[in-house]
């Protein structure tokens, strides 16, 4: 029953800067928390390395030291400061998550809108290829791609991005199929637009809305996948400072009681993924 008249009455137009921010906070509570967490990560990623030492410097003498004022997160089996490595790793994991989401979103949206709007053979081929790519459950495809392409950060990013592109293709294609039937597309034809102009100037902008929310969620899942691969020793290799690698290295220490080596990096991964989920979930809620 949200007829325009009722909607207009209930949302009073906020005045001035902080009022607008306040109204955004009220409308997107969870996303705001997500943004706060994200900004902490961003700051750590940008300025962190200035405040911490060298993540690779080992000092076997105080290996596996518990968290203390000197080593906030304690030290790992090689005596490296877990906190330092965690801070340095922030830059890698945050950037990797966002880049994967962007690649998948952009590639997926472009292919999706062309397949959705033009249909025909291209659409059929795109659908079959996405079926095939989706037949490898998210993680498995990345696994085999990295195993084949070789263990390097760019390879992991490409592999995981390829695994998530079909999500965006399907999403934007479905939306483009719907937008194609709407009257403003006919009007654009009458106004003299060619099919390509209509696809990219009219249909694409209106088909992207679902892609924004999905991008936030995918960024979160990508962080988890990259860390998962690293945990299995695939893609990002020790001694690089990356949270997945750190959890893998700390795994056996946990058994012997040195819980801090794996707990902290793992917690940071989850918190980052959480931030992305909060943003994505709230935006998606808004769409409903």
């Amino acid at each position: 029953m949200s007829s325009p008249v009722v909607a207009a009455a209930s949302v009073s137009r906020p005045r001035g800067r902080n009022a607008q921010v306040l109204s955004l906070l009220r409308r997107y509570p969870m996303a705001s928390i997500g943004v706060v967490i994200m900004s902490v990560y961003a700051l750590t990623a940008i300025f962190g390395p200035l405040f911490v030492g060298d993540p690779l410097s080992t000092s076997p003498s105080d290996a596996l030291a518990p968290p203390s004022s000197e080593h906030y997160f304690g030290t790992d089996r090689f005596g490296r400061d877990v906190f330092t490595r965690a801070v340095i790793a922030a830059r890698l994991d945050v950037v990797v998550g966002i880049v994967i989401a962007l690649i998948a979103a952009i590639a997926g949206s472009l292919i999706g809108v062309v397949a959705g709007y033009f249909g025909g053979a291209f659409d059929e081929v795109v659908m079959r290829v996405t079926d095939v790519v989706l037949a490898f459950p998210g993680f498995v495809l990345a696994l085999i791609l990295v195993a084949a392409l070789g263990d390097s950060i760019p390879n992991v990013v490409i592999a995981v991005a390829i695994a998530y592109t079909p999500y965006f293709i399907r999403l934007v294609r479905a939306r483009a199929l719907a937008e194609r039937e709407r009257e403003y597309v006919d009007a654009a034809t009458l106004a003299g637009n060619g099919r390509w102009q209509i696809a990219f100037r009219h249909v694409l902008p209106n088909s992207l809305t679902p892609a924004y929310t999905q991008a936030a969620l995918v960024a979160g899942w990508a962080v988890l996948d990259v860390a998962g691969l690293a945990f299995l020793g695939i893609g990002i290799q020790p001694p690089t400072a990356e949270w997945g690698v750190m959890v893998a290295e700390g795994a056996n220490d946990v058994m012997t009681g040195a819980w801090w080596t794996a707990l902290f990096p793992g917690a940071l991964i989850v918190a980052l993924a959480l931030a992305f989920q909060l943003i994505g979930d709230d935006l998606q809620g808004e769409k409903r």
Partner: protein
Amino acid sequence: MSLLDVRGLSVGIAGKEELLLRDVTLSLQPGEIQGVVGESGSGKTMASLALLGLLPPSVELRGGTAAIGGRTVLDASRRGVTRQVGDLTMVFQNPRGALNPTMKVGHQVRRVLTKVRGKSKGEATTETVALLRRVGIPGAERVAGSYPHQLSGGMCQRVVIAMALAYRPRVLIADEPTTGLDVTVQAQIFDLLRELVEETNCGVLFITHDLGAVAEMCDRVSVLYAGQLMETGTTIETFEQPRHPYTRFLLESLSPQESSRLTSTEEAGVDFSLPGCRFAHRCAHAFERCSDFPQLFQAGPQHLYSCFLGEEEDDVAAQRSQLA
């Protein structure tokens, strides 16, 4: 004593002061079809959802009482909606959407008979086919076994009416039952509704924005604007001697010249927090009294309207209190 008596019905948005419906008063006699007219956003559907207790979660009952045959079915101050089986039901605008897409059409009628009227399965099955035939569906047995997506809009609406018949309401609310249907199918549905009213003597609230349908179908009409009752009277009184400026606006908008300065409700917008008459800012006759909440003035034995213009024309404010 009237069949349905609604007094001071008010509904507001949860957590906000503004009232979407304010002090709406309606009365319906047995065997009467009353039109409830208003532009989109006037609250005409909201009022009926309130009576049925089906208000969306974001909206809450703020005041008012309603009684059917003298028995209270709604009391905002006490237990809210206390509707019982057979009191009232509602038919909605989008017929194909009003039927469960994964349930056979016959089953949807039958379950009203078994689950609500407590009839046995065998009895209900035969009565279902009879009801489908009664609402003019050819090949009732075959249709009973098919699914909503296999039927036309007109057929779906007849099934929903059959469900309402199975419920045997004393008051039936029809919310734009034929909007979107072809005009020849609409005429068939109007005919069917008229027959059912004569046969069961139930009262019908016919919600619509189409003045033609009101003239065709309704004995009385109530005009709603921005959640306020503007005018109520027999159809002929309201069409030929409209007393409230908004009713005049509606009738005049049927065939104005482009020159006449008529802004639509959508363009003019509505301020729900206004204490007084919400049409004042668009009304040519507005004067200082309009900032108070207008009472109902009497223009005839059954003809009431809420506008202070009435004060000059005939001082019957006293009579209004006797009615309330």
